[in-house]
């Protein structure tokens, strides 16, 4: 069995709009190692969420996967390419919610307002397991308890609008984990929450990952979160991967100019009172508009750099 639960290769996605074709993903390749937390960072529109939606195969028209493959190697079944599955393939049903599940950005709207929390969590089980309604509800209750909901017997019959934002996100996480998926994709799960609640949710995700030992793909633009959670970091920009490395490599010693700019733009105590760095100077560089293949450096990280810049590192 492969060490990587996901191997994404040359993934390209386009959105056909009235004003022309928008290339959301140009050539995305990276691996998601099994049992680890992989963070995908990048600014808005860099293609982080589109990549996640491709893995779940929930890209909606006018979006379309043009080319590439996503090799999925689950423990429970034989490996297969997610991109090549036709819409009627039964493996697609197992994939969504059972083998891979997703936590979204907006806990306030990610749950339907007209069904109870228990109904929506239990539904995830009923979609994939041959169990009775009662068994599903019992499992749902256990999972809700595990994500830290108090007074579950009462709360399970309540509606989402009776929960606070942080509690709702716990419910969404319970819903995502209740089938024990091999990969949990978190698409900016803390962006819409208060700072204190953010910390709680992050701790919860990290603890549950250690407990369940699943693989996590964590999408964020918050480098502080990356430092706290991730094992591996993928830096994306304009639908391309610019740098892949361990947390230490990318956050301590970024190679790509864009990664360097991204890091410099974090407000810190040392720079208090000073103007923040912008990435604007980097964005204009020809480096970022032309695509270079990812090259593996001696320290193991991969980077997409212009040949002259690359030579510098290889000569070291």
């Amino acid at each position, binding site marked *: 069995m492969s060490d990587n639960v996901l191997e994404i290769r040359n993934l390209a996605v386009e959105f056909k709009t009235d004003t022309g074709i928008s290339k959301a993903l140009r050539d995305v390749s990276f691996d998601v190692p099994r049992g680890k937390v992989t963070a995908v960072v990048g600014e808005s529109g860099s293609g982080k969420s589109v990549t996640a939606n491709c893995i779940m195969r*929930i890209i909606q028209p006018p979006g379309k996967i043009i080319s590439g493959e996503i090799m999925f190697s689950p423990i429970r079944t034989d490996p297969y390419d997610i991109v090549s599955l036709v819409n009627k393939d039964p493996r697609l*049903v197992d*994939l969504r919610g059972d083998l891979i599940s997703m936590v979204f950005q907006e806990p306030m*709207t990610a749950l*339907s*307002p007209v069904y109870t929390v228990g109904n929506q969590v239990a539904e995830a089980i009923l979609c994939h397991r041959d169990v009775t309604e009662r068994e599903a509800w019992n499992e749902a209750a256990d999972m809700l308890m595990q994500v830290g909901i108090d007074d579950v017997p009462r709360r399970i019959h309540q509606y989402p609008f*009776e929960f606070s934002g942080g509690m709702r996100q716990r419910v969404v996480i319970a819903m995502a984990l209740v089938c024990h998926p091999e990969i949990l994709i978190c698409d900016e799960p803390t962006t819409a929450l208060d700072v204190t609640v953010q910390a709680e949710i992050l701790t919860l995700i990290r603890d549950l990952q250690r407990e369940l030992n699943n693989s996590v793909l964590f999408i964020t633009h918050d480098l502080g979160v990356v430092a706290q959670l991730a094992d591996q970091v993928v830096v994306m920009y304009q639908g391309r991967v610019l740098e892949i490395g361990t947390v230490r490599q990318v956050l301590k010693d970024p190679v790509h100019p864009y990664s360097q700019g991204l890091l410099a733009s974090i407000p810190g105590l040392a720079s208090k009172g000073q103007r923040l760095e912008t990435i604007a100077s980097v964005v204009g560089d020809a480096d970022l508009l032309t695509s270079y293949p990812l090259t593996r450096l001696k320290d193991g990280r991969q980077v997409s750099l212009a040949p002259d810049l690359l030579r510098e590192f290889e000569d070291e």
Partner: protein
Amino acid sequence: MRGYVIKRLIGMVPTLMLISVIVFVVIQLPPGDIVTSTLDRLQAQGVEISAEQVQNLRAQYKLDKPMVLQYLYWIGNFVTGDMGYSYLYSRPVNELVWERLGYTLLISISALLFTWAIAVPAGMFSAVRQYSVGDYVLTTVMLVGLATPSFLLALLAMYAGYEWFGISIGGLFSPEYRDAPWSLARVGDFLSHLWIPMIVVGLGGTASTMRILRANLLDELNKPYVVTARAKGVPPIKLLIKYPLRIAINPFISTIGLLLPVLISGEAIVSIVLNLPTTGPALIQAIVNQDMYLAGSFLMLLAILTVVGMLLSDLLLAWADPRIRYE
């Protein structure tokens, strides 16, 4: 909840009292009354009536009393369930109303079911396949349906029914069954006549229902909770019905109550064209002929059904949408 319903029911009383006064006054507003219109008719036929007979008629109908007393007499009986006597049909109003209301109810409900059976699947298809060929075809057909006056459709349907299916034109019964007692054969005859009014009345609302459902669904289809459910592995058809459709039909639930008053007043023209024994044409006849008790009773029933319908709508909506229930 029970307290809320009781509060609403009590609140209806002053509303209905006010409406009853307005209804009574409005009916009395035009010059003349049932006696003068009867006199006109009789005189046109050459029948002479003495002033004394006119006085007797007036006294018999209590038309010689002051208006306030007439009102009290009418409303007092109405409250006890006696809606008075129709001079026009020479029958008690109660009999007339219940008989016609039964047929009206049957036609309206079957038409409503027909509307929903067509409009809901069509609206769902149009929303899910937005801007597809099917969407445009459905939209065009529906707009033609919307632009066709229902009385014209009624005429066309009658022609088609007679020409191709050999169904007698108009009415809810073939001539041989019109006054026959109820039997299986009569029920069958009734059902074979029911489909024309059902389609004609139903099609009128289909286009707008479909368009509204399509718009509502399009608003909901890309909401995060739908994406969450899809990512959870809910199969597509179940997903569509359980999540976006469930929210998209709320506006319809809130208008179900408004259908109650339409039962009485609606589709009068179609009913006249199709010669249906429903309440619509009777209401128009009563008002034209100043048949005071019949018109007044119809209008009062209309008012009662409106306020009851609104309450029903609110209760249904609260039942369907927990956000409203918990406010």
